[in-house]
């Protein structure tokens, strides 16, 4: 009789339900990483997720933990209220680029400026996914979308916003990183960054955000493998990966805990 062990299975913090995401969309990967980190930290019973408006609008149905649904872009404001009322809870927002970098940019900047002790998972796929592939603040120069059919013209619409760099400049931010989901190696790095962000919150060190470069095969009109190659070859050069702000306290935390 051959004995075997389970080396990989669905994390407990993720509900056993199908998601509405398109085939090959890396939202599913991001959900799984957040769920795995919350399970590993053992804080599922006191974690509250705040869902955005956008493709991830049903995120509260997929995470097996408490959740709330914010108005478009207002997840950081809602998370601020939840965290201040229940400071012993772990509060995170899960937001897309249309939510965080467009209509909700005021909320995220002020949450970071105030150093709110919350964690933000920011999915950057350079397009408005749910509404049909319009140009987002993060759409790359020359990128074709339904509202920039000839490619984004920077003379007319300006340049894409680099949120990680922007928020890293806020004194209240404790940990800000940008990672990508285009390969297994990068997915593993992204998980470490998410873990550091949650640990920073648990230690009460201030605002933490992880930006994840994500794919949108449907609206980019690419196959899932082509979409991941596009992330690597086109998005990563404009949105360099790495940790943009790590305070000394956060660094000490990650050293101590390995």
């Amino acid at each position: 009789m051959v004995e075997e062990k389970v080396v990989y299975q669905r994390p407990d913090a993720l509900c056993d339900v199908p998601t509405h995401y398109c085939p090959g969309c890396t939202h599913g990967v991001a959900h799984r990483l957040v769920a795995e980190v919350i399970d590993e930290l053992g804080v599922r019973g006191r974690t509250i997720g705040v869902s955005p408006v956008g493709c991830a609008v049903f995120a509260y149905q997929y995470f097996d933990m408490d959740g709330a649904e914010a108005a478009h872009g207002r997840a950081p404001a809602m998370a601020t209220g939840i965290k201040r009322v229940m400071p012993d809870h772990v509060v995170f927002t899960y937001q897309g680029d249309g939510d965080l970098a467009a209509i909700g940019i005021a909320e995220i900047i002020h949450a970071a400026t105030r150093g709110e002790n919350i964690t933000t998972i920011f999915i950057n796929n350079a397009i408005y996914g749910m509404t049909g592939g319009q140009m987002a603040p993060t759409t790359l120069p020359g990128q074709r979308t339904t509202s920039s059919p000839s490619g984004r013209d920077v003379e007319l619409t300006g340049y894409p916003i680099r949120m990680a760099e922007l928020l890293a400049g806020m004194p209240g931010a404790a940990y800000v990183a940008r990672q990508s989901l285009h390969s297994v190696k990068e997915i593993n790095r992204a998980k470490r960054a998410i873990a550091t962000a949650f640990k920073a919150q648990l230690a009460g060190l201030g605002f933490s955000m992880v930006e994840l470069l994500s794919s949108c095969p449907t609206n980019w009109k690419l196959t899932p493998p082509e979409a991941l190659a596009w992330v690597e070859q086109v998005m990563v050069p404009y949105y360099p990966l790495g940790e943009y702000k790590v305070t000394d306290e956060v660094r000490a935390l990650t050293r101590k805990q390995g």
Partner: protein
Amino acid sequence: MAKGRIEIREDRCKGCTLCALACPQGVIVMASDHVNAKGYYPAMLNDAEGKCTGCAICAVACPDVCITVYRQVPAKTRPSAAV
């Protein structure tokens, strides 16, 4: 004999092919003769030669958490073998 094996939840698979491309052993193939209830060609384990090592790279790549990975426990680390 394969060192590992995977179970793919066919009904949850969306046929994105990312697991098949990620597999270092190339033992995941996309079905071509049938579709699942969603209408996608699901990924399947095709490991007649027993190459699967249970590395779980496919499961990390899968956006829909369809894959459960099992790995054989080497005999020397089994509690029963120590008796």
